[in-house]
């Protein structure tokens, strides 16, 4: 009897229904989104309010400065009168100089043609679906530099000679970064292979070079190229300052590129090397046909990141007085006909936007290849 009672205590059967629960809160729409993402808790709400204040405090004056109070046209007087707005008139007046440097006016079509030829090589290379990548590379490495060299320097085919000290602006920035990128990639590959080589002398030389370049600031390498290189060469032998800077920049970037490529080489499973060897391939054939295509593909994002770094670093040739974009812009501030307090800020913002567009574009491209590769490697 007592047993039955205790069983009654243990078992419980609900007799009535539960009260209906309220409908689920909406998860779509503006308000639910705000509740989740902006006002999740008390702390969150405070953060949001602080964030709004900060954003307004920064963004509103910026818009006012760049657009509402800005001087778009006119001369120095208009800019000097408007002290709380950008002086875009100054940028407009100097735009030709910012793009072409001191390249003579009647010859600027040559620079434009150079831009066009460059785009014609790089755009199809960047789009994965476009075929004939081999020919594309051939064009970018041999044909384009040859044409561009003759076109820009001149002195042949009836083109007047334009000395490199006259080059400048965005155009020179692009020349420097193109040469740096084109040179650093193959040099970096060779250095990376050397670093992974089993020959001790080769390995030591490559490690020394890579670690040396990565350990010192670019400025000192540029100084070395600019000041020491003429000392190292026989008396009387000298070459163009721009060319020396290009050499220094390429060596410097190659060291960084080598480390990126090495990462790719290390990611290739040992079986690939052994498989290639067992097929009877020699070292170079194995590298060319089996290893490098895989290794390079893996590290394309890393390569593009190195390119971004290189593009930003081109601004440093400024230090040895080569008129790339940033130096051209800074130099234009000393123009007495444009002496106004807003001029330096406007010029620098313009340069920043130009650099930003190129670098951001490249970083988006890097992201795009990363995503594309991840799809390819999904198992």
């Amino acid at each position, binding site marked *: 009897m007592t047993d039955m009672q205790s069983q009654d205590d243990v078992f419980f059967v609900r007799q009535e229904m539960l009260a209906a629960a309220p409908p689920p809160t909406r998860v779509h729409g503006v308000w639910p989104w705000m509740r989740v993402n902006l006002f999740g808790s008390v702390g969150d709400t405070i953060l949001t309010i602080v964030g709004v204040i900060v954003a307004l405090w920064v963004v509103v004056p910026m818009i006012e400065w760049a657009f509402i109070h800005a001087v778009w046209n006119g001369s120095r007087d208009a800019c000097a009168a408007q002290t709380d707005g950008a002086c875009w008139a100054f940028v407009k007046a100097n735009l030709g100089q910012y793009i072409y440097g001191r390249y003579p006016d009647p010859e600027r079509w040559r620079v434009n043609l150079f831009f066009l030829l460059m785009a014609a090589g790089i755009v199809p290379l960047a789009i994965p679906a476009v075929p004939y990548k081999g020919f594309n590379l051939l064009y970018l490495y041999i044909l384009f530099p040859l044409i561009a060299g003759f076109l820009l320097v001149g002195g042949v085919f009836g083109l007047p000679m334009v000395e490199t000290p006259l080059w400048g602006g965005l155009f020179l920035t692009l020349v420097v970064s193109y040469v740096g990128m084109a040179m650093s990639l193959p040099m970096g590959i060779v250095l990376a292979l050397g670093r992974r080589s089993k020959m001790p002398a080769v390995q030591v030389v490559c490690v020394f070079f890579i670690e040396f370049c990565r350990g010192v600031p670019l400025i000192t390498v540029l100084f070395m190229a600019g000041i020491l290189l003429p*000392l190292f060469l026989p*008396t009387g032998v000298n070459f163009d300052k721009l060319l020396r800077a290009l050499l220094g920049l390429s060596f410097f970037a190659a060291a960084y590129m080598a480390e990126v490529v090495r990462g790719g080489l290390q990611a290739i499973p040992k079986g690939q090397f052994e498989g290639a060897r067992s097929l009877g391939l020699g070292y170079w054939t194995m590298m060319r046909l089996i290893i490098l295509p895989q290794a390079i593909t893996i590290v394309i994002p890393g390569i593009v990141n190195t390119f971004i770094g290189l593009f930003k670093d081109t*601004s440093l040739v400024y230090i040895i007085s080569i008129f790339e974009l940033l130096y051209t812009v800074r130099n234009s501030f000393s123009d007495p006909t444009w002496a106004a307090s807003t001029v330096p800020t406007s010029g620098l*913002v313009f340069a920043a936007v130009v650099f930003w567009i190129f*670098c951001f574009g490249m970083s988006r491209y890097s992201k795009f290849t990363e995503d594309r590769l991840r799809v390819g490697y999904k198992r």
Partner: protein
Amino acid sequence: MAVADAGRLSASRDRWYNNPLVRSIAVQIILVAAVLGSVSWFANNTVTNLHERGIASGFGFLGQRAGFDIVTFLPTNSSSTYGYMLLAGLLDTVVVSLLSIAIATVMGLIVGIARLSSNWLIRTIATVYIEVLRNIPPLLVILFFYLAVIASLPAIRDAMQVGDFTLSNRGFFMPAPVFGANFDIVLIAFLVSLAIAWGVRTWAFARRMRTGQGFPSGWVGLAIVVVLTAAAFVAAGAPLSFDIPVKTRFNINGGWTIAPEFASLFLALGIYTASFIAEIVRSGVMAVNRGQTEAARALGLQGGQVLRLVVLPQALRVIIPPLTSEYLNITKNTSLALAVGFADLVAVGNNVLNPTGQSIEVVAVWMAFYLGLSIVISVAMNWFNARIALKER
């Protein structure tokens, strides 16, 4: 033996020039010869060139009188030697690097955590910050601070003033502490109290390991340090006064000054590098598995303990190596001081190089310093990395 085996495969493998060992030795000999050859060729040319220009090589010039003066943290004057000037530049590089590293780390940490926030607005602000700063050359950021931000501050005449602190386009002026006669007593008391606090901490930890009883060693230690140091300060007769900057019509004299060149350099480098550090912090925190947090919670650890004992040690393992290279990058980027005229090692070296023509020696000093620093920092970070590495059986 290997040669004999290869011989059985085919005749062509048997040729001496196809032997891998022979090839490897030949390649190495050629490479070494080429490197040595070009180095000696360069050296030979250099000697000839220097001789023709009448420049004596060697580091003897370091002892000569420089004849120029620069503003550095070390007091210099026009009769200082070249060597002393370079030393002053080196010190400036170290100071500006350390300051930039501090700013970049703090800002990077904040922005990196903000980037992980569940709050959309905070996350977006952090993302915009990172994407804008990462894609602009550091030199441009420095120039922007120098020519746009600091240059647009008010002139001395109508400078912003809070108490004895003044902000103008000539720099940031603040009172400088002047240490009295007995200040070393306070310093010693501070160090002693630190040692005592450390002892308390060690004792508390040992007791906790033994008995499981907790002890608020942090608060007690702080109290020991504050009370002891303050007591020593009062006992020594408060040996501290301030040199307050005095404003004249066109300038401000006395006190401490943060010059525009210095400020623009460390602010720009700090803010620029913070965008990279933020991404490193974010990836580090994201690399720690969610299960780790949940397991720590299940063990009964509290919020702060979970972060301190479980998440951060694992995140640091991912964060430290790239963070090291960012710190090295900051140090190398301080060489951009040349563009704004702050006297760091490279800028001073440039000043020394022009009158003396000792370009090789100056470049050698630069390279030795930066390479040495790289090696020291890498060794230190490798040690730290090994310390926090995964402890496996």
